[in-house]
């Protein structure tokens, strides 16, 4: 098979604590150096949490795997310093085509909303994502990656966790105030704490393959329902970086995974998909079976679950990695405030409250896509086929076609950290919602709103000239940013997205989510909302 990518090999190093036999108490130990574990490491480093990541391999993801990254995770990675690099390397697609049997049912244009720094989504092989995150980590202090380290067991103490870890030089002990399990859908950590991981598993298998195709082929997403080259199943084709294309074939339950993975079995399929005369080479192929399930609690004592270790969804709609990044976005600042004694332990429990809610929303969306793509009964299949046949000539049926919905963050609308509105607001920036970006300038330079917000508490207020530069609560300070003074909203996009009238004031959390909003700047109310946002 061809190689467009050289897998790096990261050196194993014996740690001081293994060499000396004296366990060191770390603030955070992250299990697993996948996209979520690495994002956690970067985010924790930014918050000043001393972190060690352990991983039993010594390289990045083998194969393209996750592929699709949506706007919100890109915004998080931008805050962590690698947004531009990911977007530059990634591939954006706008046109999607839906085929039913031998016909083009219809095509659509994503028409992404203007005035956001980050695109609606990019396609990029997972190994590039991990490589870029690792590069960024190597530039940070206070975070250490330990390759070839495998967690064997853990024991919870009152205020820390004792980890038994195996490395090439033998078994040794580490200690951590908090353990963050990012070790994927088959998480060993989850088994070690006896967490329940329940839901629905599907009797279906998928073949995923990366092919290299140098010839001109449009950068579009093509989805086939019941195509002539793969009857009664579905198939997906989309572009990644380096002329690598990703193919997903639904195989059905009766297929033999080992047989289907053989190049002589894959190549004729791809030929039928692309047309016979196109030249391509197979780079990587894998088989997977998916399930929709989640852990019953994201926190077990001092062990916290994130990413696929906490929730597993179907691949339709690219919700796995995207929602995992939002887990970390939610967790990092809470962990820091609790570690520093600036917020009660209840703030950590709000991680479960908010992210379990989001996981359930993702599971619902992903189950709906699955029911459309792989109908579970003859009646369900008839409705699916009726929608697809109608869609060709009837625009009304197209919104019913579900080949995976673009992953968008779930607003924490019922979160106990929110302060409910007292006045009516237009737009979508309700408490619990992630902040929309907008072009703004500050210090005479054009830039983006989310970059100016950063990762601390911010009080955003439209107009006026409040005397306070900061609203304090205990050791926490919310920085006051005045639109018209500290940042200039020349195009009015910010005011429009936030329904920003004179006096309108938002309290924004460190994860760039709205905690509260009012029609006037009232320090007493802001203080109260700030206390509530840290579960105090």
């Amino acid at each position, binding site marked *: 098979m061809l190689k467009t990518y050289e897998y790096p090999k990261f050196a194993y190093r014996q740690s001081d604590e293994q060499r000396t036999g004296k366990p060191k108490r770390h603030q955070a130990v992250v299990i697993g150096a996948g996209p979520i574990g690495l994002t956690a490491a970067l985010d924790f480093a930014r918050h000043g949490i001393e972190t060690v990541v352990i991983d039993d391999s010594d390289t990045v993801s083998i194969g393209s795997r996750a592929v699709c990254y949506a706007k919100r995770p890109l915004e998080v990675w931008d805050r962590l310093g690698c947004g531009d690099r990911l977007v530059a390397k990634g591939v954006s697609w706008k046109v999607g085509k839906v085929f039913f049997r031998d016909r083009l049912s219809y095509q659509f244009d994503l028409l992404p909303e203007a005035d956001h720094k980050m695109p609606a989504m990019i396609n990029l092989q997972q190994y590039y994502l991990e490589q870029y995150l690792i590069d960024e980590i190597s530039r940070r202090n206070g975070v250490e990656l330990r390759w070839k380290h495998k967690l064997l067991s853990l024991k919870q103490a009152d205020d820390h966790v004792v980890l038994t870890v195996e490395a090439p030089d033998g078994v040794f002990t580490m200690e951590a105030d908090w353990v963050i399990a990012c070790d994927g859908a088959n998480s060993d950590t989850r088994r070690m704490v006896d967490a329940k991981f329940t839901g629905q598993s599907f009797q279906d298998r998928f073949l995923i393959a990366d092919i290299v195709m140098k010839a001109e082929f449009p950068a579009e997403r093509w989805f086939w329902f019941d195509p002539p080259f793969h009857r009664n199943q579905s198939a997906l084709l989309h572009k990644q970086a380096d002329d690598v294309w990703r193919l997903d074939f639904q195989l059905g339950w009766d297929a033999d995974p080992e047989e289907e993975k053989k190049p002589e079995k894959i190549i004729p399929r791809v030929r039928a998909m692309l047309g016979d005369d196109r030249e391509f080479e197979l780079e990587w192929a894998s088989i997977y079976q998916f399930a929709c399930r989640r852990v019953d609690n994201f926190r077990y004592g001092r062990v916290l679950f994130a990413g696929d270790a906490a929730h597993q969804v179907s691949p339709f709609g690219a919700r796995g990695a995207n929602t995992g990044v939002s887990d970390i976005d939610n967790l990092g600042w809470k962990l820091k405030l609790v570690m520093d004694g600036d917020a009660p332990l209840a703030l950590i429990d709000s991680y479960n409250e908010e992210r379990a809610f989001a996981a359930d929303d993702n599971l619902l969306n992903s189950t709906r896509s699955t029911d459309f793509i792989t109908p579970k009964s003859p009646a369900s299949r*008839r*409705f699916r*086929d*009726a*929608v697809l*046949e109608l869609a060709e000539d009837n625009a*009304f*049926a197209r919104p*019913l076609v579900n080949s995976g919905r673009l992953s968008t963050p779930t607003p924490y609308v019922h979160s106990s950290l929110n302060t409910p509105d007292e006045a009516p607001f237009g737009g979508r920036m309700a408490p619990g919602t992630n902040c929309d970006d907008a072009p703004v300038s500050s210090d005479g330079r054009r830039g983006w709103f989310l970059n100016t917000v950063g990762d601390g508490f911010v009080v955003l207020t439209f107009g006026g000239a409040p005397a306070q530069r900061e609203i304090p609560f205990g050791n926490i300070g919310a920085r006051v940013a005045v639109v018209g003074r500290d940042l200039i909203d020349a195009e009015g996009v910010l005011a429009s997205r936030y329904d920003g009238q004179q006096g309108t004031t938002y309290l924004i959390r460190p994860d760039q989510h709205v905690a509260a909003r009012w029609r006037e700047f009232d320090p007493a109310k802001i203080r109260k909302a700030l206390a509530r946002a840290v579960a105090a």
Partner: protein
Amino acid sequence: MPLQTRANIADPDGFYQELIDSQRDLREGEAELMNCKLVLILANHIGDREVLREAIKIAGGAGAMRGNR
């Protein structure tokens, strides 16, 4: 607007005949597919989720139509 459950179709015999005639020459599977399309076209025309929910409930046998007894 609640689901219209009083008789609302002009010339009911004519409508019924039209419906049956439209599937007279179809095989079972084709007629079933056509029925699905018909449901989707009419559902889109109605649009109102409350009305559709009530109709789905009644069609599923979850209660008699109001005004029937």
